[in-house]
């Protein structure tokens, strides 16, 4: 039962609910406090029967209205509960979100091996030495409700195995000196997100010394590659990276793959969706990847949006 305001206008009589933080409700309750307090004082000396009931009820009602007035004042100032619905919320239901099937999931089910040469649309323009090799972990198909982290191996190296990187998709990207960093931060993640159930953020790079500059450039993009494993293959050139990006030098590809995979999340089911949200700006919540649509490539980062004002967005 919410207090209402009756409005008289040329259109007739309107009955509208009083706002929880509005002045009308505050005035009504404050006036009520004064009136009940005055009434209690007046009734105090009168021979009203039963006096033992009228007096204490007057006190208690005054107290209750006083506390309500103060509560409304504080709430009007701090907006703890801006509306009646916030004060008496309906039971919140968290929507379950399921991971959509990726384009290559069905095809992978027909094969014995999880290793394949990957030729996504547009790869020829990525300035690679050859089409990338993708290694899908053994548990990928048996875990159809989860997204997998990705380790991208730069340079020509690699044997096409994922030894060391358990539960992680490994991409041997065969980058060259001509490969732009945007391939690693935008094109490849967008294409891989269409073809496989991969995560939206926090992948890792494995790089030979020769590709460390490219790795550093890729790590400067938001949220994608916060970790770089440099494989020791001669004098080490540490890439210049922003604070927050971890660079580790490791001996051998298996050790580098293992360390890089450890920097990423394990396979995860889709995050819970927030209840009753209504974005005030164009924003994709992590749990709502864009639907697969061949004419509109899925965003590079289905796990979230970048805030407005960020470069490359």
């Amino acid at each position, binding site marked *: 039962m919410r207090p209402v305001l009756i409005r008289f206008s040329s259109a007739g009589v309107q009955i509208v609910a009083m706002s929880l933080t509005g002045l009308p409700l505050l005035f009504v309750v404050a006036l009520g406090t004064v009136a009940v307090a005055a009434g209690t004082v007046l009734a105090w000396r009168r021979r009203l029967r039963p006096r*033992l009931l009228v007096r*204490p009820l007057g*006190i208690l009602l005054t107290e209750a209205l006083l*506390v309500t007035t103060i509560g409304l004042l504080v709430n009007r100032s701090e*907006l*703890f*509960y*801006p*509306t009646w619905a*916030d004060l008496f*919320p309906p039971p919140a239901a*968290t929507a379950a979100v399921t991971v959509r099937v990726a384009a290559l999931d069905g095809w992978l089910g027909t094969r014995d091996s999880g290793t394949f040469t990957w030729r996504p649309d547009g790869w020829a323009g990525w300035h690679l030495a050859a089409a990338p090799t993708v290694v899908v972990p053994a548990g990928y198909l048996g875990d159809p*409700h989860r997204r997998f982290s990705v380790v991208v191996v730069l340079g020509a190296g690699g044997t096409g195995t994922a030894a060391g*990187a358990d539960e*992680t998709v490994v991409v041997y990207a065969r980058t060259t000196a001509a490969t732009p960093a945007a391939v690693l931060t935008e094109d490849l993640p967008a294409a891989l997100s269409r073809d496989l159930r991969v*995560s*939206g*953020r*926090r992948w890792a790079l494995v790089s030979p010394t020769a590709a460390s500059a490219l790795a550093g450039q890729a790590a*400067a993009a*938001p*949220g994608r590659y*916060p*970790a770089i494993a440099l494989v020791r293959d001669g004098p080490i050139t540490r890439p210049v990276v*922003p*604070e*927050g*990006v*971890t660079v580790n030098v490791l001996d051998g590809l298996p050790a580098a793959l*293992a*360390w890089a995979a*450890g*920097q*990423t*999340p*394990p*396979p*995860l*089911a*889709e*995050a*819970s969706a*927030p*209840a009753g*949200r*209504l*974005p*005030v*700006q164009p924003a994709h919540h*992590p*749990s709502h990847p864009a639907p697969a649509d061949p004419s509109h490539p899925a965003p590079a980062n289905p*796990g*979230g*949006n*970048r*805030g*407005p*004002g*960020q*470069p490359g967005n």
Partner: protein
Amino acid sequence: MAPDSLGTELLALAATVAAAFLASPLWNRGRGLRRYAIRAAAVTACLLTLTATVLAAVNREIETYPTWASLLISDPAAAAPTEHAPPGAETGTVITMTVSGSGITMPMYVYLPPGYDSHPDTRYPVIEALHGYPGSPVPWLKRLHVTTILDAEISAGRMVPTVVLFPYQTPDTAIDTECTNLVGGPQAETYLTTDVPAAARARLHVRGDAAGWGLIGYSAGGYCATDLLLRHPGQYAAGASLSGYATPGIKIGDGTENTEYNALWRLAHRPVPAVALYLACARNDREPLADTLALAAAARAPLSVTTSFPAGGGHNAQTWQAMEAPAFDWLSTALGRPVVPATGGAEEPAVKVPAAGR
């Protein structure tokens, strides 16, 4: 009967009603000065009992004083309630430990995920959960039901088994630290970013590197999560702010509330770290919403920002409870996995992450 219990609130309410009913028959008792003394006592009793009822209700909401000791000696160190959930296969455990450092000694609640005890070699990711002001970590456990939510998210595979720390943020409930180092006051920032992690690494099997450490907080704790993440990217990789602010809203003592401790100033004037920030705020939560929008607008590479704006809710526990699960899930996508250190020291991924729940 704890000061935040329903029993205490009902007792105070009963006393308020009793005082009102006693006032009437006592009003004309006695003669002369004695009569006035009785009347003054009756009025005082009415006001005191009413105040007690209101304070008990407010304390139940924000849990500033979860125990009588915390109320009487103003030092949370000796005052942590000990309510431990029994461990189970699908449920985590909450333990209490004391953390000392930077001149501060305070208790801390720790959520240990399902499987923690049976995987002593696994080093788990860690999230520090920060509370609002005034308040204590207790609302996380009692009002936001964090253990139930963590158990459910981990069991469903939406969240990685994670150790969650619930530290106190001020050694004196009357001092609002906003997780900063106050000039001439508590060094809360050092305590939270150095002493708490050191204690966790020493006494729990958790990840030692920043990839495995995240932050979450509501209200003032949301500011803390944003601020500590931006100021300590060598310690934390990700943070989630629920209805948080961009500034501490207090005086630090040297004016840095307008510069180094102002997240918007930092984003404009300091190198931006490569960390991930999650900002959630109800659309009708005026001041935090303005701050959240300003933070999202000021963010630039390599900082990554994800936003969520529920339609309603306001600035209260129900709203944070609704925001909790998506925020914890997001943190799992922004932190490294549980690992088993290989012989020789280097950390390698755990052979099988004890997530499952399928």
